[in-house]
């Protein structure tokens, strides 16, 4: 088949963890010869709709990105360009025939990471550093907590939001503040958190991507998120001429290969692995559903 022209529009620099997952999946798909990929990064809210329009006019068939900050306008653009498919990370739902959305649902993996983390804490206090309390972030932190709670119902939780999506030094300071307040396991929804853990010699959990190579002594588990299944599904729909105005979030589920846990066996407590693996199997076969809780953790 002919390669599909796909454009990526990233609101942050592509180093940002979330964007890097999209970017890597798109690069990989391009390498596989499935798509032809161009992208812009660091696109501000003011410029975002223009970038969408430009790419649409340049003949791209699928435009991948994030409409969180421009929900209304992005849907307007999609309505103006019915021949182009849009696949957007969004807090809202799909719109029309060509505006598809997806959520970042690696909460299942976060739950499993919580199970591994639970027995590792000496103080029984767990910290989490997030960007801002939106559902995408809340669901993750809540799932991690639920995982911890399953093994350790009396656990105490701290949460810090840094008020922005990309400020690693700030995430680090927030992590340090939680360590000062007694936390000895940190869930790093944001990059920078593990730096605090590393500095204070405690352990932490990564989210979205694998932080263990970067912090080998510190990050013992990662709640991985994979964009490729969503991308592949959307590409298939576009090529088949199917309606793409739908919610692609389910492709984030573990059973679709959209998220999973990776962890270091030598760093976690051996006894906690079997129970976690059991749960993992249950999630995959559908017999256990990790609760989805978008409320703001306190």
């Amino acid at each position: 088949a002919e390669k599909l022209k796909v454009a990526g529009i990233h609101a942050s620099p592509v180093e940002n963890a979330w964007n890097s997952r999209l970017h890597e999946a798109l690069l990989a798909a391009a390498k596989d010869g499935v798509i032809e990929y161009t992208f812009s990064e660091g696109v501000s809210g003011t410029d975002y709709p223009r970038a969408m329009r430009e790419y649409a006019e340049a003949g791209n068939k699928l435009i991948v990105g994030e409409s969180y900050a421009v929900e209304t306008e992005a849907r307007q653009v999609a309505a103006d360009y019915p021949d182009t498919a849009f696949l957007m990370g969004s807090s809202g739902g799909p719109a029309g025939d060509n505006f598809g959305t997806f959520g970042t649902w690696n909460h299942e993996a976060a739950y499993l990471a919580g199970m591994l983390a639970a027995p590792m804490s000496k103080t029984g206090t767990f910290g989490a550093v997030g960007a801002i309390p939106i559902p995408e972030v809340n669901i993750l932190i809540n799932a991690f907590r639920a995982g911890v709670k399953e093994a350790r119902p009396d656990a105490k939780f701290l949460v810090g939001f840094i008020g922005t999506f990309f400020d690693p030094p700030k995430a680090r300071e927030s992590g340090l503040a939680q360590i000062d307040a007694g936390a000895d396991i940190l869930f790093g929804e944001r990059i920078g958190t593990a730096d605090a853990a590393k500095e204070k010699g405690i352990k932490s959990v990564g989210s979205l991507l694998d932080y263990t190579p970067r912090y080998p002594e510190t990050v013992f588990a990662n709640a991985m998120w994979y964009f490729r299944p969503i991308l592949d599904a959307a590409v298939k729909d576009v090529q088949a001429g199917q309606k793409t105005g739908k919610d692609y979030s389910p492709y984030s589920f573990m059973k679709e290969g959209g998220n999973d846990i990776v962890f270091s066996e030598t760093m976690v407590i051996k006894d906690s692995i079997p129970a976690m693996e059991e749960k993992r199997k249950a999630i995959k076969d559908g017999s256990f559903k990790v609760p989805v809780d978008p409320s703001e953790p306190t």
Partner: protein
Amino acid sequence: MMEALDIFASAGLWAAVLRIATPLIFGTLGALICERSGVLNLGIEGIMTFGAMIGWMTVYHGGDLWAGIAVAALSGAMFGLLHAAMTVPLGLSQHVTGLGITLFASSLSYYIFRLSIPVSGSPPTIVPFQPIAIPGLSDIPFLGEALFSQTAPTYLAVLLALAAAVALARTPLGLAVRIVGENPHAAEAQGIDPIRLRIGAVVAGSALMAVGGAFLTLSAFNSFFPTMVQGRGWVCIALVVFASWRPGLALLGALLFALFDAYQLRLSHVVGKAIPYQLFLMIPYLMSILALLVMARRARVPQALMQPFRRGER
């Protein structure tokens, strides 16, 4: 309530204060030196960004950490020279030029960074400065952890602030800087060349600003990314005013500002969302305005601040 006060008893808070304050100390000293000579340097935000980028880049490409600091200082000096060339001999509007320098230096940093570092999943890292435990002092309970387990640039910043205070008050160079900032005509009449002195002060001050930026990538964190200076430069401009143009008070102001920041991060665990965090973040700005209000009456402002000096013109 008690918990909110307990935070002050944690050594971690005070360690964080010094750490958060360090880039502000460098930046504020830099801005202060410029302003004492009569030149407002609003290029600071961009110069800090460039210092953060180039310092990190130097180390990433195999340079020593101190080489990173040195290269950052050099780059800051270059932007300082640009600012000085435009505002001192040409006498261009200082705040507009400064904003232009900020726009130029920061966009150039991002551009160069993007050109030279291949796009990757997470920002590439370097091994940053490690905390140095000062033998003896760092073993003191509480104080040791709070004050004496910092990285080398933090100690340097504090020493520089003290040195700058002494130099301004008690050396011929310091007096020359002050008299040029107060009245360049008086300086010229004493055989001091106001133009060269101002250029020198702006170059030196800008070098310090860039070192403040480099601290962010070489010590506070281990990678560079756009927008990482996050308005710290503007805070420094405010701190200079808060300090009524005195290095000792600048040090204090930077620490106070950092205390607010560090405390706010910790307090949110105690009070939750009862008090919006933004209010805490506003306090330093509002305090600076208040300080300005008090200072304006005492006429401590260098009297020739923002007044161009043109030789042979009147």
